[in-house]
């Protein structure tokens, strides 16, 4: 179990490292403000990546016969939560591009906490397959 925990933490750290670099790069990408860059990135990279993640994940689960496993069902709950959060963030980004109003500071804090908690749970469930 110690190895699985270390592996999960390693993957989570790599995800956060990469995501952090992408955010910093996007903030510097547009002289007219970050919203336009973020909107383009969300449309052409993040959303297709989410669809590919679902399609490839479900294909792998079907090929490996994991649909009767408890860990996969638990993981799917967190993946659904992540997808819903992405939908909310993407909608807020589009609204922000149109009207200029976005999420409050407290809402951002809550979203970031939920994202990191879901990521940790998903990675641990996949790596350790505990039940």
């Amino acid at each position, binding site marked *: 179990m110690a190895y699985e925990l270390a592996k999960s933490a390693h993957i989570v750290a790599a995800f956060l490292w990469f995501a952090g670099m992408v955010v910093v790069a996007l903030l510097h990408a547009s002289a007219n403000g970050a919203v336009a860059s973020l909107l383009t990135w969300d449309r052409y990279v993040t959303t297709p990546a989410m669809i590919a993640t679902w399609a490839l994940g479900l294909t792998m689960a079907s090929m490996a016969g994991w649909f009767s496993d408890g860990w996969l069902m638990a993981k799917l709950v967190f993946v659904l939560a992540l*997808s819903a959060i992405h939908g909310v963030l*993407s909608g807020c980004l589009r609204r922000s591009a149109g009207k200029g109003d976005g999420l409050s500071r407290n809402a951002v804090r809550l979203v970031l906490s939920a994202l990191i908690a879901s990521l940790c749970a998903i990675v641990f469930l996949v790596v350790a397959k505990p039940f």
Partner: protein
Amino acid sequence: MPGRTLRMLALAEAATLLALVAIAVPLKHYGGVGEATRVLGPLHGLVFLAFCWAIVRSWSEGLVAGSDAARLFIGACLPFGGIVNERWLRAKLSVRSNGV
């Protein structure tokens, strides 16, 4: 007109559901051809998930209200519901974009 992705996904969801229920399932049960459900089942599942995601995004964007989102979700579970909802959504968003 805003909401183009939402309307396209509503139609795609309705089309894959109808193809699954009206073609693939009878082929499996009455013709012994299981390949149609094996292809259309996961395809419809993926389109359904994408449509649900688009509903959440449109609600968060302020394009549709909470009750509209519920109507779209319920319609997605019924054959022909997606087609009816797409027409309703087109009329609703058209009125909104014309500022009526």
